[in-house]
């Protein structure tokens, strides 16, 4: 009988061992194969244990330490286990995908060993982050995660955009770590311990609690990508190799959420205004995240903005939970946190699915611009089906997993309105409308990319589209997870409920009381009807005849790829509504006259925070700083004069010193 800890440590060792393969084996292919097999084996070992622990909770033995880290440096409470499970669940398919992804680069003759090492390092460090209980060690692994992601990100470093985007990420991490320093220092000073589990704030010190909350929000929120700190995501995600960006988007930004949960555990109950702050910020994040996404043409950038959106949705759940905690209202906390936690899992699953899918597309077509794609469905139908699954899931529409978590969050709104009365029904209604609006925009956005990328015919040059078996496995597993969580949420709800009861110790059965059976039944019914109708129409087609012809085009019969609707046009009408906040601008030339010249239309969106605040602000700052000149920075006479001046200055200070 070995304990969970042992399994975890064993799995970490196996994963760490996988790094040795590329170091000691010469051949790239062999090294890659061996490394990935080891890595996946390690991940599965870990996943089994964390899965069992999350889904069949039982008492764990205290167990042993690891690598000189004493046992109390680790924390395997439900929250940590849940995140660990999420991390590993996503890491396995990503690792499988990584193999074929690297094959692609090996085929190009690039050296991929460094990428693998950083990828594996990132996975390992992430798993450590969520289990570590010691603040300093936490920071170490936190930074290790960020840095390995960064180093992986710069794989195609010769590209200008890679340099820029990765630099954003790099700087963002530095800021986060500064904030975390202060956060942990204060907590350490409060308790005299470095263990996260020991951190407490003296009750009644509301100023300190608020300060700490703000610090946590700034630090973890920046990592997670809440607006206005989201600016790094759309810069950093597109340029990373897909394995990295999938993990970055699926998991690493969730570390921010993890941190917020931990901060809440330490600081709870949250002040009411913090709850509202989180709720409002999240709402803005969600709405503008998806709206910005709609205006993008770069598939990965678009997905990055969707990560912002989904972080917003998670944040909405947390905001409700915070408000609940301010009122000491158990049901609100349970539903809010439960929805957020489940959405963490869901988003991790479908976002990595989509990012990995975008990696396949990018590898095959050599572009990330969706305006140049099209017609992929005719070359790789099943791949499109898998991507579509992820798209449906991320839109939060039935019958997949996205709906389940949004459903819980909607329920939390209803609960808040019911429990708190006063002006809450109104506020909650506005929140619900906001969330519904986000859903509508997400539908628009994902119909856009699915339609433009996959349907119709190929724009630009036609290339063969190859999807390897490993890609199918990894995408398939993730898609299956989307379906399973959607159709059969009960075990996942149980798991989440278990985690939530760790955060809200008083407990309550609000999550379980939602009639999940209904959801299962209805979704089954829905699929059954759809399938039945599908087969009926198929049978009818056989009976009454079926043929293919050119598309209707008002009698014009030479419909070409260039005549298809473009992504810019598709989204134009919606983006036009919010021209200012989106920085949306278009360039169009309509042909006029009898012999019109060629006409065109393009639209661009400039991130408000990035392009209006950060870039010009930084430029202004630089010019301001460059204007400062110490006189005579080159002349020895001034050097000597400074000695005299400083002596005089210090003497004056000394003279005035009392």
């Amino acid at each position, binding site marked *: 009988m070995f304990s969970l800890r042992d399994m975890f440590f064993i799995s970490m060792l196996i994963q760490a061992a996988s790094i040795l393969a590329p170091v000691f084996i010469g051949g790239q292919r062999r090294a890659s194969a061996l490394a990935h097999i080891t890595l996946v084996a390690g991940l599965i070992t870990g996943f089994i244990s964390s899965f069992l622990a999350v889904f069949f909770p039982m008492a764990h033995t205290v167990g042993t330490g690891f690598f000189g880290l004493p046992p109390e440096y680790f924390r395997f409470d439900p929250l940590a286990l849940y995140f660990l499970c999420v991390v590993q669940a996503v890491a396995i398919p990503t690792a499988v995908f990584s193999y074929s992804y690297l094959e692609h680069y090996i085929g190009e003759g690039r050296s991929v060993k460094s990428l693998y090492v950083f990828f594996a390092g990132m996975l390992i460090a992430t798993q450590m982050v969520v289990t570590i209980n010691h603040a300093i060690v936490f920071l170490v692994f936190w930074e290790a995660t960020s840095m390995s992601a960064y180093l992986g990100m710069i794989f195609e470093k010769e590209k200008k955009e890679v340099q820029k985007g990765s630099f954003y990420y790099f700087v963002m991490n530095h800021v986060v770590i500064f904030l975390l320093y202060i956060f942990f220092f204060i907590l350490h000073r409060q308790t005299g311990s470095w263990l996260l589990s020991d951190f407490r704030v003296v009750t009644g010190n509301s100023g300190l609690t608020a300060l700490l909350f703000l610090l946590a929000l700034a630090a973890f929120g920046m990592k997670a990508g809440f607006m206005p700190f989201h600016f790094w995501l759309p810069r950093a995600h597109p340029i990373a190799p897909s394995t990295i960006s999938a993990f970055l988007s699926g998991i690493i930004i969730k570390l921010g959420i993890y941190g917020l949960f931990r901060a809440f555990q330490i600081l709870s109950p949250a002040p009411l205004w913090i709850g509202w702050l989180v709720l409002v910020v999240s709402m803005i994040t969600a709405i503008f995240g998806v709206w910005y996404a709609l205006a993008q043409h770069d598939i990965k950038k678009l997905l990055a903005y969707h990560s912002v959106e989904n972080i917003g949705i998670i944040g909405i759940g947390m905001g409700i939970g915070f408000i609940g905690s301010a009122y000491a209202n158990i049901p609100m906390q349970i539903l809010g946190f439960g929805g957020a936690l489940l959405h963490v899992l869901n988003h991790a699953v479908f976002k990595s699915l989509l990012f990995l899918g975008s990696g396949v597309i990018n590898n095959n077509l050599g572009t990330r611009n969706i305006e140049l794609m*099209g*017609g992929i*469905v*005719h070359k790789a139908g099943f791949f*499109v089906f898998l991507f*579509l699954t992820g798209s*449906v899931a991320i*839109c*939060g529409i*039935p019958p997949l997993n996205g709906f389940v978590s*949004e459903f819980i969050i909607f*329920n939390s*709104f*209803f609960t808040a*309105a019911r429990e708190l009365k006063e*002006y809450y*029904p*109104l506020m909650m209604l506005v929140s619900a*409308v906001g969330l*519904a*609006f986000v*859903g*509508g925009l997400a*539908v*628009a956005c994902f*119909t*856009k990319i*699915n*339609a433009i990328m*996959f*349907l*119709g015919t190929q724009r630009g040059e036609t290339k063969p589209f190859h999807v390897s078996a490993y890609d199918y496995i990894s995408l398939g597993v993730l898609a299956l997870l989307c379906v399973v969580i959607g159709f059969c949420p009960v075990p996942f709800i149980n798991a989440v409920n278990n985690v939530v009861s760790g955060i809200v110790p008083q407990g309550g059965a609000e999550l379980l009381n*939602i009639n999940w059976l*209904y*959801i299962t039944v*209805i979704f089954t019914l*829905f699929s059954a*009807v*759809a*399938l*039945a*109708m599908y087969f009926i*129409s198929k049978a*009818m*087609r056989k009976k009454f005849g*079926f*043929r*293919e*012809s*050119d*598309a*209707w085009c*008002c009698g014009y019969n030479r*419909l070409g790829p260039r*005549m*298809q*609707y473009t992504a810019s046009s*598709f989204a*134009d*009408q919606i983006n036009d509504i919010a021209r200012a906040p989106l920085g949306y601008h278009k360039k169009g030339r309509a042909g006029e006259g009898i012999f019109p010249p060629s006409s065109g239309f393009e639209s661009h969106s400039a991130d408000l925070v990035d392009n209006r605040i950060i870039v010009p602000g930084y430029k202004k700052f630089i010019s301001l700083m460059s204007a400062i000149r110490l006189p005579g920075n080159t002349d020895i006479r001034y050097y000597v004069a400074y000695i005299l001046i400083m002596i005089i200055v210090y003497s004056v200070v000394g003279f005035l010193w009392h």
Partner: protein
Amino acid sequence: MALMNIFEGLASLFFVLLFAPLFAGLVNKQKAMMTGRVGAPVWQPYYDLFKLFRKETIRAKSASFISGLSPAINFAAVIIAASMLPVCNAHPLISFKGDIILFAYILGTARFFQILAAMDIGSSFEGMGASREASFAIFVEPIFFFTLGSIAFITGFTSISDIYRSIAMDRMSYTVFIVVCSISFFILAVTECSRMPVDDPNTHLELTMIHEVMILDNSGQDLFFYQYSGNIKLLIYIVLETAFYYPLGAGLTAVGVTIFALNILFVSFVLAGVETVTSRFKLKDMPHYLLFAAAIGILNLLIFTFNK
């Protein structure tokens, strides 16, 4: 009791499935009469559907499996939505806490696939329609929550049938509130079902169509499912619209059913009337129109909340 509930639910569902084309025919007939034409018989939609079902299916060469999948999903979604309807205050087949969300979202699923299927062809006409559909759709769910959802938030009930049951027109302010809600909801219904003044179902110019242009390249069974789902959707929204006035006496008694039927007839009359007297809005102005509906909802809600 439970068995009775199921029976009521099934009956409601069949009612919707059965009478959906009739209602569409009814509206068309009234419209024709108002414009001074004789018009097609009210049964015409049934004939159309029957004919479509038996026709050969023609698909565009560039179509993919989406084109085949979408009609079925559309239909299934509409059926699920229909089974949540409290027809004549009967117990619906599907009713649980929070089903209002499912209702809104399952129609979203239908929309998602319909837009995809439109884009599947790769023709710019369908693209136009899909783009418009997508841009109007983003307002649909917010308005839905501002109307039906506002009642849910105020009363605390989250199941559609419960929400409607909770409506009681005993207080003046509440009555006004409900009436304004129903007006807002009517605009929503018009938008969702592609009726005037948002969309002209009878137009023949591809450039101005919204819903019709999306199914331009469909025929045979595909078109059958689209049309039929469209009819059902219309009836769903009409039933939800009439349900605001259930306190007037609708119920599972003879009188109640009659009132319900009259309600439906009245709404069909209003619908036809609106379609007769209004012309289609400019596409550019459409968001304003929808925002207007949302604004009514918000204002109404504000007044209601702070008028206690």
